[in-house]
């Protein structure tokens, strides 16, 4: 393969990786941030158990998620009628499940650590429940952004689920991590290392961007 073709392929793989991971992280953020926030601010029976379960799910092996999603999406599975197995959508589903507990748990931790007086102060100044909740989220935003970044880091670096439900199809569902696994298995260490370096560079760039943004805000 010429270096130009190689470059194009690496670029394509990077595009698939970023697309699926960003979509999965966005969807997980939309669910997990409100969930983590509500768990933190509401008192209910079984709260401690729920938090313990969510914390445990953060360590869920990616292959277990891959297996679960595979069972769900396979032709004979309950969601088989969707016909999305071995498509980027299937990878999004897997990564969404992986990101959920991380963003929820870290949002819960970030919101819990916001001074209780923030809500009381906002209410004392006439805020509605929604306005005071928004103020709590704003005061805990650094921790919440860190939660989203951690979720993104988890999904862009995972391989087990992506390979099981995506199928590692060249030009379609091949992500950087599945490509690294494949090239290493084929003995193409140079390409594997190149892809690994690109993956690290992407992760570092995103973290630096967030860090710069947070630095400006604070």
């Amino acid at each position, binding site marked *: 393969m010429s270096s130009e073709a190689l470059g194009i392929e690496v670029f394509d793989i990077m595009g698939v990786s970023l697309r699926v991971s960003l979509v999965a992280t966005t969807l997980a953020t939309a669910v997990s941030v409100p969930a983590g926030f509500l768990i933190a601010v509401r008192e209910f029976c079984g709260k401690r158990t729920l938090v313990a379960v969510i914390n445990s799910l953060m360590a869920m092996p990616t292959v277990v998620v891959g297996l679960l999603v595979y069972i769900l999406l396979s032709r004979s599975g309950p969601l088989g009628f969707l016909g999305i197995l071995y498509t980027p959508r299937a990878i999004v589903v897997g990564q969404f499940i992986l990101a959920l507990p991380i963003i929820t748990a870290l949002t819960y931790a970030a919101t819990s650590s916001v001074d209780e007086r923030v809500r009381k*102060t906002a209410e004392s*100044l006439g805020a509605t429940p929604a306005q005071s909740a928004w103020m709590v989220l704003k005061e805990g935003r650094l921790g919440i952004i860190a939660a989203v970044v951690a979720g993104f880091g988890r999904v862009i670096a995972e391989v087990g689920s992506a390979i099981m439900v995506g199928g590692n199809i060249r030009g379609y569902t091949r992500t950087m991590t599945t490509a690294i696994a494949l090239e290493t298995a084929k003995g193409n260490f140079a390409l594997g290392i190149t892809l690994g370096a690109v993956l690290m560079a992407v992760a570092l760039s995103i973290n630096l961007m967030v860090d710069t943004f947070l630095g400006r805000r604070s």
Partner: protein
Amino acid sequence: MSEEILYRLRGIKRVVTDGRLVLDIEDLEIPEGSLTAVVGPNGSGKTTLLTILAFLVRPEEGEIVFRGKRVEAGDEVALRRIVTMVHQAPLLFHGSVFKNVAYGLRIRRVPRSQWEGRVREALALVDLEGFERRSVKGLSGGETQRVALARSLVFRPEVVLLDEATAGVDAARVEMVETLIQDVSAKLGASIILSTHNLAQAYRLTDRVIHMSAGRVVRGGMDNLFSGHGEHENGWNFIRLRSGPRIAVPGCPPGAIRFMIPSASIDIAAAPGGGEGINRYEGTVTRMEIRGRMVRLRVAGELGLRAEMAPEEVEKRGIRLGGRVVAVVPPEAVQILDS
């Protein structure tokens, strides 16, 4: 003319999570437009009372009537738009002083074009002109307290509740905050209820003082506040009032003195006759009203007094509206506030 009642609390009970009863108010009224102080030691329920009056906490039992209307669940959000509370050790949100002070305007959807002028005006009130762009991170405790005060005044509330408003303020600024409190009451027409440990401050600033102890109101704002001059004569200590009469006290420093006579300590009986004592004043009952379990009396005479008695005592002693009475003030009941 009867005064408008701002708050009327009946049978209020507040229980905290460990089951402790932290507030137990049988009956309390706070008039509109007044400057009221809530005094009492730590744990007496001052802050709890203020949070209930600020509609931040709902008591487990009892009834709150605000401006004649019973407060129902769900009314609190609307009421918090006109009633505000400045907490002890207030918290400022991250960001600039401007963002903090403008918060009340933002959530009330006041047009953005008005923010700058209103924020500047509020900061000028608390002597913090030019602080708009400052970050809250570098502020001292006193500055934080004053920014919090400005943040609560910027939207021109009708009721302001101040929890230990001068607690973090340095001595040099206390007078400024006290003047500000009186200005807010006078200029904005806001009713102010403040909690304080400082009895002298309470009497210096306010029209009424509510004394609390162990979650209960022990005296409800009917005390008598006077100022006069300390005198010594034949081994006795007196305070002479500007209006003429004098009161014997166990001891007092010379010079100008402010002092208080608790309404419940005054012994009143119908004249002629009445009680005996060195501080004996005649007058006419100009007002009688039943408040909770007590009858409140106003006696006009050489020493105008407000007193509180049980209804059966009022009847037994033949006290009636418009009747002549003798009021006896025990010297040991007089409390010197400052000199």
